[in-house]
């Protein structure tokens, strides 16, 4: 879907929307600061839209390898205690989390 890259500035509502997508809580002063800064950065990216990329394949990584496979072998991994050692809260050998469904 083509969109208008001429309009490079972000609104405070758009910044709040992005922050929600990224799961970052913002204060009002955060929103004002990031709106100005992100708009300023995006302005510099407008020139990209002028480049002709018709028929050009996107690069996902510069030195591609295809179908990297390994043998499906049983091997040792972290123990349960090692895997849990950094968990903020645990119970009965499991990570304890808040209810996801309320």
């Amino acid at each position, binding site marked *: 879907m083509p969109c208008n*890259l001429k309009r490079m500035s972000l609104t405070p509502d758009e910044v709040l929307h992005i922050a929600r997508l990224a799961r970052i809580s913002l204060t009002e002063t955060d929103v004002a600061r990031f709106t100005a800064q992100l708009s*300023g950065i995006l302005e510099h*990216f407008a*020139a990209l839209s002028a*480049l002709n990329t018709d028929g050009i394949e996107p690069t996902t990584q510069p*030195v591609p390898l295809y179908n990297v496979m390994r043998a499906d072998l049983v091997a040792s991994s972290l123990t349960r205690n090692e895997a849990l050692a950094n968990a903020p*809260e645990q119970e009965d050998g499991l990570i304890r989390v808040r*209810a*996801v469904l309320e």
Partner: protein
Amino acid sequence: MSEELWRMTAHEAHEGLRARAFTSVELTESVLQRVADVEPRVHAYITLSADLALEQAREADAKFESGTATPLTGIPVGVKDVIVTKGVRTTAGSRILENFIPPYSSHVYEQLRRSGAVMVGKTNMDEFAMGSSTEHSAYGASHNPWNLELVPGGSSGGSAAAVSAGECLVALGSDTGGSIRQPAALCGNVGLDPTYGRVSRFGIVAFGSSLDQVGPIGRDVEDVATMLDCISGHDPRDSTSNPEPVPDVRHYLGQDIRGMKVGVPKEYFIAGMEPGVRARIDEALKALEGLGCEIDTSLSLPTTEHALAVYYLIAPSEASANLARYDGVKYGYSYREGASMWENMEQTRARGFGDEVKRRIMLGAYALSAGYYDAYYLKAQKVRTLINNEFKAAFDKYDVIVTPTSPTVAFPIGAKLNDPYAMYLNDVYTLPASVAGLPSINVPCGLSEGLPVGLQIIGNFFDEGRIISAAHAFETTFGWANRLPDL
């Protein structure tokens, strides 16, 4: 005698260790004493591992006794805090990982340990390697050993500062868009960013997965070659790790570079480059000519100017996905006072991340979001292809491409902190090779206003050997190796 051992390069120290002129314990104690003397002013480290270092030094001395030592055995090394080290706190410069003790080690740290190297500590860095000055570290900025009021560059600024200040002999950094080469330039060191895929990313805290590479910083080209040999090679735990055989790059030291074809792209000589930097680069090109290189300044890489936009769309997009894992559930800082699971997660990330990390996550989330994906992320990936194609065509004609590493020398702490785009411009000369995945090296080429200037040599894919030959020949004729600032 032992109090000056920290001044040695790793290869000089290796000769001393081999001849039993001193032990690794003595060498390590000398470095730790130097750390005690200068670290309050330099702040190169986030975490010191002095007791572990002395234990590793004792093991190294035993290897010399048993005849199993390698060139890095017993050498004190600084390790960037983005590199996961089992049992030693790894923060990636972030508050969100303040108490993270890794249960496993990265491939590169395993390789260092296998070689018998000694880890002094974990070096300071911009949070999640996002920055060019170390000012975005949650643990405070590092100071440039050449002038303590200036930044050391970034994001591997702690590693570069530690090498220059004598707080280790060599160090590991990581480079996503210039994070090894730019601080090496600003601190007067040699720093090498390998070809994407040359070094395993297993156990590297992820930032931009199609760009991240670990590489060495040292006081001369030989030390950097030795470190690269230690960490290179295939690792099945990283599916982007290249399975091709790896040549021993130390063989490329001391080579005659007569007839080497050097392309100098005109797009790199732009407004914004300091006259003092320009003068040193012009002199360096003359020195390469004197070594018999064929210098061609007619090379044009017209898409160069777009590399910055491409990088700052692709790297933040990848970062926004990679950093989704910091949710306060499995490990890391966790806010727990909220009314709901979502509030806890949003507060965990609001309190755990610094501003630059938030900016990049949001920039990436925006570039990937519905309605903007084609215009931003996909467009950037296509322009990335154009940049790669230009480099590929250039390497049909040239053996190496030579440019400045940074448009300026080190700048004052605080000067660019409130202008994110001005900070991004520090990497304008290092971003194109990163975007293309090409290997590149910074080698010091003199001083401007008393501060180091760096020359960047870019090579073809997996041709680290040739850039090491060129950098070593230049360093030898230029006579800069192992020059340390008064501190």
